[in-house]
């Protein structure tokens, strides 16, 4: 029977992620009159359970910034300041807002819905320079996530040949469908505990996608999950091919060094293919604008997937190019050669919010790889100090089943938001979103188009 794809969520609360944005302080002018307990509809203010004559410490993490208590306190004894602990989360790319959002998505599995309009800057760097489109009237019925119409989020990984050049030598390219255009990475930062790896891989299995695993981190308990694992190694790391994982996995990734000999790659691939005929082969690059030579290798070696690696801020290690720019160029390079469908392009690095997924797909990726976002879902604060005993999120104590649920919740929330974006555009299949740059607005282009007359006149036109 036909089954509609659905992700099952269930609440998974983590006590370490209740860091409020604000801090409410009460000074000694307070008369314990209790007016604030009546005014606050979020239960920030309560009487002290042990001594009802007194007020308890305000539960600041519940505060939602409404100022009702502060503006009505007869003694002016309440004040609100920013919570430093919150302000110090993350960094300039992984902002406190993003981390907070991921936490609540991982907790509830729901789309963040709030009142009032947009509150942020007009535009920001990277993904924040892109707006996606919508269409007003002339599209068929759709109601997004609430709706009657089904929007497909599955994508195919593998080569789709345009034609068969030589029937004699032809063998079917491998091909796998994943249900959401997101793959998971088990090595998001320095942290690589077994529990963490297991949680991510189990989540990947449950939501029907692949999880990347460095071959040196493989352990036997993972054997039942081999079908959902992308086994990853450097070119030199492809050794001990007799071991089970190499033979059983459906997907292998080789990280290409900046310089390598084509013959070496060819030999390794031949070895792999003779041993495992069903695995997709992905070649990973860190070069934001790879040379013609290298791109030719992808075609000649019949690579199924190209995976572009950026750092956790979405930038290339060389040249500081943002991932959306690299992917856009890669996509167009293959389009120009009329071989775009003969390779799957995915990108990893800097995917920190739900909107980054459709935006990278619009730039030309078939799917994206989630890395640090998974760790954040488990409670990470992006402090970049990954040592087992000092982790403020106590990641070393994670229970795999619980951590898995948080990742599943995150995936569900992000998929639902992808559906929102697709439905606004009138697109019913995420595969049709790929490379649809015409259905997006890019800051530089639209700013020039709209305001050139103002800036030109003043000599500021770039």
């Amino acid at each position, binding site marked *: 029977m036909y089954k509609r794809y659905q992700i099952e969520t269930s609440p998974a609360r983590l006590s370490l992620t209740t860091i409020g944005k*604000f801090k409410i302080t009460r000074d000694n002018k307070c008369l314990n009159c209790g007016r604030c307990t009546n*005014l*606050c*509809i*979020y239960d920030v203010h309560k009487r002290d359970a042990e001594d009802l004559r007194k007020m308890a410490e305000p539960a600041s993490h519940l505060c*939602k*910034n*409404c*100022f*009702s208590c*502060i*503006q*009505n306190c*007869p003694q*002016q004894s309440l*004040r609100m*300041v*920013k919570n430093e602990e919150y302000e110090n989360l993350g960094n300039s790319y992984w902002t406190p807002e993003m981390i907070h959002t991921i936490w609540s998505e991982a907790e509830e599995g729901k*789309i*963040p*819905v*709030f*009142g*009032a*309009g*947009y*509150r*942020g*800057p*007009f*535009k920001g760097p990277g993904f924040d320079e*892109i*707006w996606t*489109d*919508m*269409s*007003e*009237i*002339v*599209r*068929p*019925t759709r*109601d*997004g996530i609430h709706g009657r119409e089904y929007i497909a989020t599955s994508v195919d990984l593998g080569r789709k040949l345009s034609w068969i050049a030589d029937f004699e030598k032809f063998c079917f390219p491998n091909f796998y469908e994943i249900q959401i255009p997101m793959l998971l990475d088990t090595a998001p930062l320095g942290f690589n505990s077994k529990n963490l790896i297991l949680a991510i891989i189990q989540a990947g299995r449950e939501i029907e996608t692949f999880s990347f695993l460095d071959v040196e981190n493989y352990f036997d308990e993972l054997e039942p999950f081999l079908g959902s694992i992308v086994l990853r190694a450097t070119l030199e790391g492809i050794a001990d091919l007799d071991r089970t994982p190499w033979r059983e996995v459906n997907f292998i990734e080789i990280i290409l060094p900046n310089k390598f000999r084509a013959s070496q790659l060819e030999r390794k691939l031949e070895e792999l293919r003779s041993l495992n005929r069903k695995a997709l082969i992905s070649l990973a690059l860190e070069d934001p604008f790879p040379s013609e030579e290298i791109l030719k290798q992808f075609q000649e070696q019949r690579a199924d997937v190209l995976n572009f690696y950026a750092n956790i801020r979405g930038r290339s290690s060389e040249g500081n190019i943002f991932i959306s720019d690299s992917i856009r160029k890669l996509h167009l390079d293959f389009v120009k050669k009329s071989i775009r469908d003969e390779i799957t392009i995915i990108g990893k690095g800097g995917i920190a919010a739900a*909107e980054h997924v459709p935006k990278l797909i619009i730039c030309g990726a078939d799917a994206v790889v989630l890395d640090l976002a998974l760790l954040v879902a488990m409670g990470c604060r992006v402090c970049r100090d990954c040592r087992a005993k000092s982790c403020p999120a106590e990641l070393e104590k994670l229970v795999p089943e619980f951590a898995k649920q948080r990742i599943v919740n995150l995936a569900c929330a992000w998929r639902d*938001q992808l559906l*929102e*974006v697709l*439905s*606004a*555009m009138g697109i019913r299949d995420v595969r049709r979103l790929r490379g649809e740059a*015409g*259905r997006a*607005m890019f800051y530089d282009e639209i700013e020039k188009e*709209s*305001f050139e007359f*103002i*800036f030109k*006149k*003043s000599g500021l036109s770039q």
Partner: protein
Amino acid sequence: MNGIEARKAASRFLNGIGKFKISLSEKCFHCGLCVEICPSGVFERQDGFNQVRVANPGQCPGPDCQKGTFFCSKKCPVEAIKIEPDPQWKTLGDFRWTPDLILATWEQAETGEIARDHLEYRIGASGGGFDNFDFVIKSSTPPSSEAIDSISTSISLNRRREGQAIKIPIPWYGAGMSFGSVSLPVMLARAMAAQAWGTFTSTGEGGYPDELIPYRNCVITQIATGLFGVNEETIKRAPVIEFKYAQGAKPGLGGHLLGDKNSAEVARMRETVCGTSLFSPFPFHSVYSVEDHKKHIDWVKVINPEALVSVKVSTPSDVDMVAVGSYYAGANIIHLDGGYGGTGAAPEIAKKNIAMPIEYAITKVHRFLLQEGVRDEIVLMASGGIRTAYDIAKSIALGADGAVIGTGELVALGCVRCTNCESGRGCPRGIATTDPELEKQISPAWAAQRIINLYASWQKQLKLLLCRLELNDITELRGRTDLLRPIDEK
């Protein structure tokens, strides 16, 4: 305009919020000098009391006050007054609505006068769009009051030859906010303010409460995709009918009222089941082409031949085509709602990422309508992130005829933009709520006066600005992009 009186409408809260923290040290012996000299009424000694207290720190303009001879902290005989920047101030507002903008809007709503200089009341801190432009001022001498009086800020809402002529004295009207998203007292206040000014407010999509009938000449009713509370009676009642295709904050996603706010009263008005979440679908399921759209407009004109038709759309990349289509379908007003606009509830992802900011859309549509040769037959209204009188003026300079205001009015009523309108009991400040207890915080008469005052201040600002641009009429400003310059350039 004549007969519109700005009257003091003080804050309904005990304590104000301000930029500065003022404290009296132990040295204070309550002489009361500061109470006498402070022109802003920061200090207070209640009748029959000996103690002086800091009653209204929110009113203190801080260092700006030093220019006067009455600066309290220097005059205090025992130097007991301490004035310092208030860290609490930073917890207010955001990039688009800076703490200054919120406080300045409160001040204007309170007094009906232009906000004082210690608050930046013209511009936000979003770093783009409106916040990136300023006007090229031509005349820097302060205009005479006669010159200001002679300036017209009136616009017409029907520029076609047929149909009734409707003019509004100020180039803006109130945006659609439904019963359910906001409370009835707020709707009433908006209608009262609209009537006082001779402009309009809109019911939004949630029915037309009977209490608004006395103000029917100033109430636009909305027909949106869920058709909640729409019937022949309400359509016959309204001088302007607004078709809402999409909303800027959630373009392409339809409306959204979470179950918490769907109270018995709201459900009755909308003819739905109390406590269920209500979704207006997207799009109109009977409109898949401009021809279908025309059919819709014809249908309304059969029911109410007198009414003007406004078409509210958000801002996709082909918004110019949509606008021209609406013109040919017979609309009188095309209302563009940009991506950064307000909402009672919307997915966060939609607010920033889907559809373009209004600044781009105005330019695009205005130019396209000009090219098509139909610009002078249709009224272009802009909304979605228009916060101040200066934003209105900038929209007009970019090519709109006027603006539609939503959030600005709510801020005038005391909204702090805490973003919690959508669930639970709704707005803790009694504005965007259907909670019978919370909504009591707002009295319609007081709230109407706040909005009237804000409008008064805005009109003053527009008139002053027009004087300084050497224009006599707001309609002369339309499309004058030559009067705009990037802000970082002197």
